[in-house]
């Protein structure tokens, strides 16, 4: 294809015209692009005038693979989408299949899914906070966040035997019940974790440099947020009081009492502060779920070879990064006819070109960090 080359030719011509503009490749091999994202930036001095993202360095035919695997076999592949929130991907995919096939989920499994999902949200936001601090030049908060994230990973290892790609959920419930004493461990973790949040604040929120770095930077206007269909903390940072856990309830989220943090101006600070407070809300949800969890089975009796009825479904959940949707077309066979992932960070990232122009290179790093991209999910 010559389209890209053509564009490069045009860029070169324009560069020759104006000696003051500079096109810089940021990524794929760059410490702050969170993987192998490539941004082509047009710089005027240090100010960004234009940003063209290039994706696909980690494309691995996720959807084509999905069309050629049985419904159950896809679960391990969903781990690799957003590898920082694998549990939530499993859940989103299983939920889509359950909705498509009309499979019920036992009560205890729903509670465990909520507990695990919210722990995953905490872990995912922790790694985000750490790497965001790293982008801003604060290394220490990265290590502090990883300390607590390791504890969550320990909890997940206890239930699934894995630390990153769990494949723990099944269509119709969970693979296994949690081991004895695990729920008490979760409770102990929450008790440890709650006083840690003010500690992070001392390294981040309370620092005037941190505040000045991210306030009023990378503003995403509400109309842009809607137009680009942003979701999750990016959407909430722009002032929308919107969370699928409450507004399009799935699983048993309607039984819990939690707040939805919302930003005001849509700058990096708002997105940061929304995620920061979401961790507190997740703690609240897990505490409520721990109180109410009933005994019972964790997996509905399901056929070994699952076949979905002819039809299609678009099913969405609120992952730590936003709206993860699975669009599945079934033709009655044991594998999906079409399997499309609506990845939250793919969609959120598409709004980056409207957020960046007019800010400095240093802000580019902060804005990109505030979107919280995971390239495994963007490139699929």
């Amino acid at each position: 294809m010559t389209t890209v080359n053509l564009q490069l030719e045009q860029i070169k011509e324009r560069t020759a015209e104006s000696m003051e503009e500079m096109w810089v490749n940021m990524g794929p091999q760059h410490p702050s692009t969170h993987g192998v994202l490539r941004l082509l930036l047009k710089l005027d001095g240090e100010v960004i005038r234009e940003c063209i993202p290039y994706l696909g360095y980690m494309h691995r035919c996720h959807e084509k693979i999905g069309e050629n695997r049985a419904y159950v076999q896809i679960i391990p592949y969903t781990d690799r989408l957003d590898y920082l929130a694998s549990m939530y991907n499993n859940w989103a995919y299983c939920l889509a299949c359950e909705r498509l096939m009309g499979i019920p989920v036992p009560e205890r499994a729903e509670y465990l899914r909520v507990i695990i999902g919210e722990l995953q949200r905490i872990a995912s936001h922790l790694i985000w906070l750490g790497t965001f601090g790293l982008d801003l030049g604060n290394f220490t908060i990265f290590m502090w966040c990883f300390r607590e994230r390791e504890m969550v990973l320990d909890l997940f290892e206890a239930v699934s035997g894995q630390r990153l790609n769990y494949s723990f959920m099944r269509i119709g419930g969970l693979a296994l019940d949690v081991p004895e004493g695990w729920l008490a461990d979760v409770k102990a973790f929450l008790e440890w974790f709650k006083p840690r949040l003010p500690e992070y604040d001392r390294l981040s929120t309370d620092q005037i440099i941190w505040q000045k770095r991210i306030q009023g930077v990378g503003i995403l206007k509400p109309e842009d947020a809607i137009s680009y269909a942003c979701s999750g903390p990016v959407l909430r940072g722009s002032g929308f009081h919107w969370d699928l856990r409450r507004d399009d309830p799935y699983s048993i989220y309607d039984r819990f009492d939690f707040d939805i943090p919302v930003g005001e101006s849509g700058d990096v600070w708002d997105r940061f502060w929304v995620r920061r407070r979401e961790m507190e809300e997740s703690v609240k949800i897990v505490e409520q779920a721990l109180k109410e969890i009933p005994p019972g089975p964790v997996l509905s009796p399901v056929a070994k070879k699952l076949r979905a009825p002819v039809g299609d479904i678009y099913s969405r959940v609120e992952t730590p990064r936003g709206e993860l949707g699975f669009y599945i077309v079934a033709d009655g066979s044991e594998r999906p006819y079409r399997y499309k992932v609506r990845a939250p960070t793919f969609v959120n990232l598409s709004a980056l070109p409207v957020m960046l122009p007019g800010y400095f290179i240093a802000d580019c790093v902060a804005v990109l960090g505030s979107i919280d991209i995971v390239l495994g999910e963007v490139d699929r």
Partner: protein
Amino acid sequence: MAADYAYVALFLIVGALFVVFNIDILSRLIRPAKPTPVKLTTYECGEDPIGSPWLRIHIRYYLFALIYILFAVETVFLFPWAIVYRSLGLFAFIEMVIFIVILLVGLAYAWATGALEWV
């Protein structure tokens, strides 16, 4: 007087030679040298650079340089003044206040016109 600076010259020369010794003699003996065309390309995050980095520098950078030169010249004047300050007394103080105030007015002007904003 000039002999005092023999050490300065020697330090500068030895400093440069130390670098040459380390890089071009000591390290050369023991390090590998296997250049490949790819290895010798310019790093730009793994992509081919577009255009040259040697381009015209924005005029704003020169504003900082100009303001700096003003103040650098001022400090050159300030050092001898500071040494003889005690012996000159009030006269020195008033004279320097006038001098500094003129410069500070210049700074205030640069501040007000936005010359101190980074591009």
